[in-house]
Every structure is written in C-alpha cells, then in structure tokens.
C-alpha cells in the first residue's frame, strides 16, 4: 500500500505532459529510416497503428493499477510475492535506467556528429547528470514542472516542418496499403523505440491527485505524440525519395537543413540545442521512475539510490564510444520496450484481473 500525501501529488491534467514527454525523445529524430525500411511509403500507417497499440496498453495500465492501492511494485508483491515480485520490480527499474541512458547517449552522439565533433562525452554527461540530480532531488512535483516547460517551450519547433513542403511531392504517399500484413507488423515493431516511455505511468500513478480524471489526459498525451509522429513521417516521406530516406540516419535533422529564415541561415543548430530541453524532462522522469521503483520495492532512501544509479549511468555512457555501441543500446531498449508493451503489460493485466476476481469471490 502506497499512500502519497496530497502536497506531493500533481493535478490530473499534468499527466498529459508527463506521458507525452516520456514518449517524445530522441527517437523522433531518426525513426523514419527504420520504420520505412520494410514498408516504404506506408510507413505513416505503421506509425498510426503503433499509436493505437499504445492507447490499448495505456488502458491496460489504468486497469491494472485501479484497485491496487499503489503502483506496479505493489501489484508485483500482491501477485508474485516478495521475492519474485521484487525481482521483477528491479528489472523494471533497470529498464527505466537503460531508457534514460539511451536517450542521453543518443543525444550526445547527435551533438557530436552535427555540431561539435570533439565534444567530450564525459564532460557533457557529468554536467547533464548533475542537473538531473538537482531536479530529481526536488521531488516529483519539480520533475513535473520541468516536464511542463520541456513540452511547452520547444513547441514552436513544430512549425519548422512547414518549410520542407516547398520541395515535397505529395504523390509519394500513394498508393496506400501496398504492403503485406507481415511487413506492416515488422515496421510497427520498429516504431517501439520511438513510442515507449509511457510505462512510467506504472510507477508515478499514486502521485496523481485524481487518477480517474487523468485517464482522458493520458490518452490525449499519447494521441498528441502520435499525431506529431505521423505528421513528421508524412513530411519526410513526401520530402525525400524512397531510396534517399534510407540514406539518412537522422532524417528529421536533415529536413532542418532546408529551413532558411532571414535571421537564421541554418536551423539545425538551434533545433539540436533546443532538443536538450526536450530530453531533459525525459531523462529526469525515467531516472525518477527507476529510483522510485527501487525505493518502493526495497524501502531504501531514494536519494542514495539516485546517486548510485547516476554514477552507474555515467560509467555506461562514458564507455559507449562508437555508433555500433549506441545502435546496440538503441536496439536493446527498443526490443525490451516492445516486449514490455506487448508481453509484460498484457500478461500482468490478465493475471491481475484473474487475481482480483478470485480474491473478490473469496470474500
């Protein structure tokens, strides 16, 4: 049983920002190539399908947590017992750590390739993680505040995706649904790295003041992410030729190379620097979820865990040097996220509902 005092809780509508911010990270900068690899022009349909899957998943999460009287760690303990349940919670915490590490390391790679090739990874990481530590030690409300600004302030970036329309060929989106079901499924799967993150709700659920009212906002957050992903995907498909898109590792950044304004000759420098504001809440929330998960499971001090986790992450990030390492990390997290979304959450949902039914009958 976890009961959070009201002064530590956040209003229900803020869940919109929390969910959207957890989903929206570095994936969106380069998801076009992987998703369109198998299905080419149908990639935007895969994006929408993936979005619908997230909605279903989110619905399940709310069902799981509704009468649990806590978050996912409580559910784990109730169903699986102290040891197995605790182990599973620890695994989930590890997953959130990996998520944060992937986002931060991929972002540093982008800064290295696009802006400063000689940027020292450990310098940037240490400054950034220091900031993350500072924010998380302020508590969940502070993290939520950062999330709010991390969504609102960079929102103007969306308008830059109007610039490539000048050179776009809308015919590139036709003919729709020209690929087999298997290919569509594969490309939907490759969306996983871009859409995962919303599982954070499993952990911060008790911190919402009015969980029932927050449902609407959570779904709106997911819908907002999906709409942005779909629009960016459509613009990319129309702007690049099919074969050209496969050449670009970060298609979203390549799109920015065409943006030209009277006062800014090239937008990608501003865009990438701005993206720091988008990944900051993302990383903070992921680390917060990881530490909270461990705190609730093992009843230890959250600050001490946070320091240990940040130091560990710092080591991992400094050790990943080449793009192969980073790709490996990306694939690992993408795969794990996929299995969490399609394996773990549905299983937990089914077991949990059976468990509750049986328990209810006993009474």
């Amino acid at each position: 049983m976890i009961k959070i005092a009201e002064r530590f809780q956040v209003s229900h509508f803020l869940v919109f920002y929390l969910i959207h911010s957890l989903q929206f990270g570095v994936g969106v900068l380069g998801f076009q190539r992987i998703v369109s690899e198998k299905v080419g022009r149908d990639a935007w349909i895969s994006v929408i399908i993936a979005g619908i899957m997230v909605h279903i998943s989110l619905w399940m999460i709310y069902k799981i947590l509704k009468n649990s009287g806590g978050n996912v760690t409580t559910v784990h303990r109730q169903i699986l017992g102290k040891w197995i349940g605790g182990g599973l919670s620890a695994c989930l915490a590890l997953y959130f750590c990996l998520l944060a590490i992937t986002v931060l390391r991929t972002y540093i790679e982008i800064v290295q390739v696009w802006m400063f090739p000689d940027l020292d990874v450990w310098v940037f990481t240490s400054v950034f993680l220091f900031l993350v530590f500072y924010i998380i030690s302020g508590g969940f409300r502070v993290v939520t505040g950062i999330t709010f600004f991390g969504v609102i302030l960079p929102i103007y970036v969306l308008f830059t995706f109007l610039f490539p329309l000048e050179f776009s060929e809308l015919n590139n989106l036709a003919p729709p649904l020209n690929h087999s079901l298997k290919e569509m499924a594969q490309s939907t799967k490759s969306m996983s790295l871009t859409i995962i993150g919303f599982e954070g709700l499993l952990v911060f659920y008790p911190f919402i003041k009015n969980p029932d009212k927050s449902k609407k906002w959570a779904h709106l957050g997911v819908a907002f992410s999906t709409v942005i992903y779909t629009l960016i995907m459509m613009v990319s498909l129309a702007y690049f030729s099919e074969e050209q898109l496969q050449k670009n590792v970060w298609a979203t950044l390549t799109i920015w190379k065409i943006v030209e304004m009277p006062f800014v000759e090239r937008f990608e420098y501003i865009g990438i620097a701005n993206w720091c504001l988008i990944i900051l809440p993302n990383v903070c929330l992921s680390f917060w979820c990881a530490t909270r998960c461990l705190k609730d499971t093992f009843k230890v001090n959250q600050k001490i865990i946070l320091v240990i986790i940040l130091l560990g992450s710092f080591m991992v990030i400094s050790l990943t040097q080449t793009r192969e390492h980073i790709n490996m990390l990306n694939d690992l997290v993408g795969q794990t996220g996929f299995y969490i979304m399609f394996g773990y959450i549905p299983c937990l949902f089914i077991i949990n509902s059976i468990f509750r039914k049986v328990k209810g009958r006993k009474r």
Partner: protein
Amino acid sequence: MRIKLLLTIVVIFLLSGCVEKEVIDDVNLIVAVAYDLTENGNIRGTADVNTYMKDQPVRDYQIIGESKLSRDVMSEMQKKSQDPLVIGKLQVALFGEKLARKGLSEIVDTLQRDASIGERLLLAVTRDEAMTLLEGDFATVGAARYMSNLILHNIESRDLPRTNLHLFLYQHYSQGQDPFLPILKKNVQNGNVEIDGIVLMDDEKVVTELPNEKLLFFKVLTDQYSKGSHTVDIPDSEDSAVVKSLSSSRKLKVISEQPLKVKIDIKLKGYINEYTGEKITPKIKGEIIQAFEKEMEKETLALIEKFKELKIDPIGIGDDLRSQIRTFKIEEWRERIPELQVDVHADITISESGVVD
C-alpha cells in the same frame, strides 16, 4: 554554501572552451567551390574565399588543392590557407564538364555527408574547366553571390527548372527520376558568367544536354507553377508574340499498364508580353493560343522521345507510375523507359495582353 558556490565557479571555468571554437574573424569561409578532372585522373578542387574590407567591395581569391579522393582535396587546400577553411557558408558548387561526364556520385557523397553544408546549395556543370569561372570578373558581389543570384532569379521568374542539393539528391537516389543540372558558361568578352542550358544525367553521369530555347518546355514538364517566356510565331502571318507564363501545372494519368501508356496534361496560364503586329483582336489571340498549344505539344513530345532514346527519366514519370500503379516494379523502370507511350495535351489560357490593345 560557500563550498557549493566555489565548486560551481570552478566547474564553470573548467568546462568553458571544451569544444573547438570557430570565431568568424579567424576562419576562411568558403563560399563557392569548383571541381575539375585533371589530365592524370585526379580531382582538383578550387575554393573561393571572400575577404571583406572596410568600405570596399568584396574581394575573392582562390585556393587550389589536388588529390585522388574528393575528401582529401579539402585537406590539401587547408595546407595552403592562412586561416582554417570552413565550409558552412558554401553557396555554389561547380563541376567541370569532363568530371560531370565521368560521374559525380563520389563528390556529391562528400557534399551530403558533411553536416555543415546546407541543402539549398546550388550545383551546376560548367563548360570547360570549372576553375576558370571562379576567376571571372563579378563587379562588387564576388563569384558565389553572383552565380547563386544568377541561378536563383532564373529559377524563380524565368525558365530554369528548380535545382539545389536536396533536389539533386532526391533525383539521384530515386529510381523513378534522374537528375539534371544547369550549365554555366564564361562569357569570353567580359568575364561574366551566364546560363547555357541544362545537362541531363542518368544515375551517375551526364548523358546529354538541352539548349536554352527548350528550357521552358522542360520546366513545364518538371515543375509545378513554373514561370518563363516563349516567342510564338503566328502561322500565315509575319507577326509573332511573346507569351509570358504565370503559372503552369502538369498532371500525369496512366491510361493502360500493358502496354505502358500515359497521358500528360499541361495547363499553362500566361499573358502576352510583346506583339509585333498592329492590334490584338480576339481572333489573333485565339491563333496565338492555338499555335502555342501545338508547339508545346510538339516540343514536349520531342523531349520525351529523346529521353526514351537515352533511357533517362528527368521528369519523374517513374515516380508517378509508382504512385498510380500498385503492381509497378520500379527496379525494372530504366529498362522499360523505351516501351512508354505518351500522349501530351496542352491547355493554354491567355488572360491579359498588357496595358495597350
């Protein structure tokens, strides 16, 4: 508290300047670059660097580097430059005719791989050696500004089809379209540079070229909303009229898949800019329209016939087919180009004829 403050200050001092600085006064900005093929098969790059002085027009000078690989050309140039050369402000890239006939893939790869080069970079093929164009006389603006303005205003309000690095890469990688680039020529008399038609390429190299007179018809086939002007000779009379196009559109419709047959609808809206006869009556206007439509159909068909002969597709018919026929195999498109049958239908409207009748 004091320790925290001290720590912050120390960290700030330690971390400032941990990446390479590029101060604008301490670097040489390359604004234009020219690539040529030398006699022994090397690539010679010429970089055009601007120097700005107080109350004086821009002066530019050239730095030359030669190497086997286009990547190394840059490092050769660095050895000859006083300040580090940076390429972020590159506006124009020129390719010598010989190099363009051999193939451009390698150099284009160099240009797109560099994150600091913009996608609006203009590319052009030159008559003879590209290097000689940079040495021309460009009055007060310098070579890069001059050439980019020259190309851009001709794209926007004249009959040069749209090109830039992004469009070139789009066409280069697409299996349903082939690239084209404008040709620049040095005017021998005054040292200026002028446009002298366009080159058409297959996947790799230049295969043929079109003269300036055919550009309007080509542009109508490639771009939407193209502008340009054309002189129409009115049949059965000595008079002729200049028609200026305001907007145009091109639609492609598949008529049958086996044999491959398409219909291209061209719509053009324009006004009469100049007329050698006495008075433009509705009858004469009709004649002008009819003559222009006929010429448009004839010329565009002739262009397409030429493309079929050379197995190239600069106007992107393949991309249109791919989006209209579900079973179309784009991989076989180049082999199937000669099979294509095309009907062209032109529809021209003339709205105005100037301030006098």
